[in-house]
């Protein structure tokens, strides 16, 4: 028996149907998705990220932050309690390329990072040496996004304030390269909290600090705010 052509047809049908369902159909459904109006404020959502934040997304991509950080809030009680006020939906990612959804939570979910109390200085110190702000952090340091250089007559205004043990030797200073600043601009643009028709906020609205308080590495928040 020689069923070569039949096998081929069957395989073609199997793969073509999954290609149609899982690739073409979502493209037809979502590919032409446009901005919508948020429910309460009536504002256009989403707005494209500003240029610097978009460059920051490329730094995020290039260094593989996505290997450890997800950016999705699922509609499960635990996710809603810990990571966001509502589930994330297609609209939240409209302008990103690539879309860094992530597959692991070695680090915290970052979909609503900008809603947590983190200053720019905190982010920069954290990227330069995570353990300088979160003791015992397993996040890798990114010293190559910074420049360690001899301090001039006057320290530069953007030099990092680092605790002992992480600070450079006396007479030297650590300043962020443009990549680091772009990355922080991106991190500060991460939020998915607009009320949408297909993803309304739960009623009564949860206090924002419920999100911030539980997400935060406990020690880090208290250090920063006390």
């Amino acid at each position, binding site marked *: 028996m*020689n*069923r*070569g052509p039949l*096998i*081929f047809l*069957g*395989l*073609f049908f*199997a*793969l073509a*149907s*999954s*290609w149609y*369902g*899982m*690739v073409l159909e*979502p*493209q037809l459904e*979502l*590919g032409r*998705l446009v901005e919508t109006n948020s429910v309460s404020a009536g504002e256009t959502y989403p707005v494209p990220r500003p240029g610097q934040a978009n460059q920051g997304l490329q730094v995020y*991509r*290039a*260094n*593989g932050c996505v*290997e450890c950080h*997800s950016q*999705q809030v*699922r509609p*499960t009680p*635990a*996710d809603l*309690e*810990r990571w966001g006020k509502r*589930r*994330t939906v*297609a609209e*939240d990612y*409209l302008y990103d*390329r*690539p879309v*860094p*959804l*992530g*597959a692991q*939570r070695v680090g915290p979910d970052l979909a609503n990072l900008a809603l947590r109390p983190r200053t720019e200085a905190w982010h920069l110190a954290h990227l330069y040496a995570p353990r300088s702000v979160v003791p*015992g*952090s*397993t*996040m*890798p*340091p*990114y*010293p*190559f996004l910074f420049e360690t250089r001899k301090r001039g007559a006057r320290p530069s205004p953007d030099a990092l304030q680092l605790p002992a043990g992480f600070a450079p030797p006396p007479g030297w200073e650590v300043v962020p390269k443009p990549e680091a600043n772009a990355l922080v601009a991106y991190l500060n643009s991460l939020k998915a909290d607009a009320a949408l028709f297909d993803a309304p906020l739960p009623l009564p609205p949860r206090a924002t600090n419920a999100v911030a308080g*539980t*997400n*935060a*590495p*406990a020690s880090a928040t208290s250090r920063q705010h006390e």
Partner: protein
Amino acid sequence: MSALPAPQPALAASAESDASCRVPLLVLFVSAALWLALGSVFSLIASIKFHAPAFLAGNGWLTYGRVLPAGANALLYGFALPAGLGVALWLLARLGRTPLAWPGLVVVAALFWNFGVATGLLGILGGDTTGFAWLEMPRYAWPLLFTAYLGIGVSALLTFYRRRVSGLYVSQWFLLAALFWFPWVYSTANVLLTCVPVRGVVQAAVAWWFANNLGTVCLGFFGLAAIFYFLPKLTGRPLHSLYLAMFAFWTLALFGSWMGVAPGSPLPAWMPAVSTAGAVLCLIPLLAVAVNCGHTLAGETARWKSDTSFAFILFGVAAWTVAGVLGAVTAIPEVSALTHFTWLERAQSQLFVFGFFAMTMFGAVYHIVPRLVPGGALCPKMMRLHFWCAALGTIALVLPLAVGGVVQGLALNQPDTAFTDTMKLTLPYLRVSTLGDLLIAVGNVTLVVNFGYLLGNCCRACCVPAWKAVTTRPPQPAGATP
């Protein structure tokens, strides 16, 4: 359909097909082994970073987010696919009792493929990753791989077409399917992500569709083709049921290709639902394969003690079964709520790619390579060492990650547990798993050394005398070299 994979193959035909495979397959297998060893070093580096995050963190090239995907890509595109293709070429020639078609093309294509892998890995380490799992290779690398694949695919199809045996054995079905699957999913995904990019979450849908079709389906087909050939071959018992194997074939093609979207993903709700259904239905081919292998093996499993190729393949069958059950269970929404985003998923994918696929390929390659080189022999002790390192390494890698993943998931689902505490809870498991990475790396180096041993012996046996004959004859009297 022929009933058996040529149990008593015409000796002349197989010698002929082995000779035609010699150079192309040695190129494929040796380079695959080198990439494999390099990839396991990358994975080891990534793992060590959980002991000391500052390890090799000074410059971007070896930061965690780059070495980890570099290791995965070296394993997948450096080792798994070339090894799968090499085994496919050999099986198609062997089962068709015909020489390999256009071996020269395969050699050129294999070299080109390796060039593509090198380019892609350098791209990833240099920061040009696309950011999508299993598709990290940048826009300037994947067309090289795709073109090279076409060369190998043409030779495979031509070899199949020129077969001198009229019936088809199931392994040939599986191989044809794998050869057909890869170019379609690889080109679609890369084009839609890097050339004419789709918008928003459609990118994620494409990437998930690809990763699932490459792993579950394409590697599944390659691996099962080898299993269905080698189990009967090495045990001397016929495959229990050809119809069960065909049943597994069709159900895997139909259901397996829909998996990959986790519950709760920001896509239209029907997509994760369909994916879950596909994953659960995939228990059908899983069961069919397990029953078929079980009956074929009945009473023969003890052979693993004496036959290393068989031991590898037996491990592969076991890992395929466990990984498949894990994949189906974790696709159920209630379970996924706990296990998604945890180390358990990594454990599952390692068990599939290394425990099932790579182990099966090792078994096949150890059977094939000595037949390619006349008088060639691999060192059996080193093979044994490789088996133990790989088997124990897989267990030492997968088990802690799986347990750690459940611990992590339980902690993350407890909203009052601070995130840093969930991080600290998983750390001991991650650190134990480094041992697994280390053992696997040692095993992979043994494979390289063993190939070196075989080629070295072969050189000493034929190339060196030939070279001596050429270089030393003129000044010496004819009697000096008998």
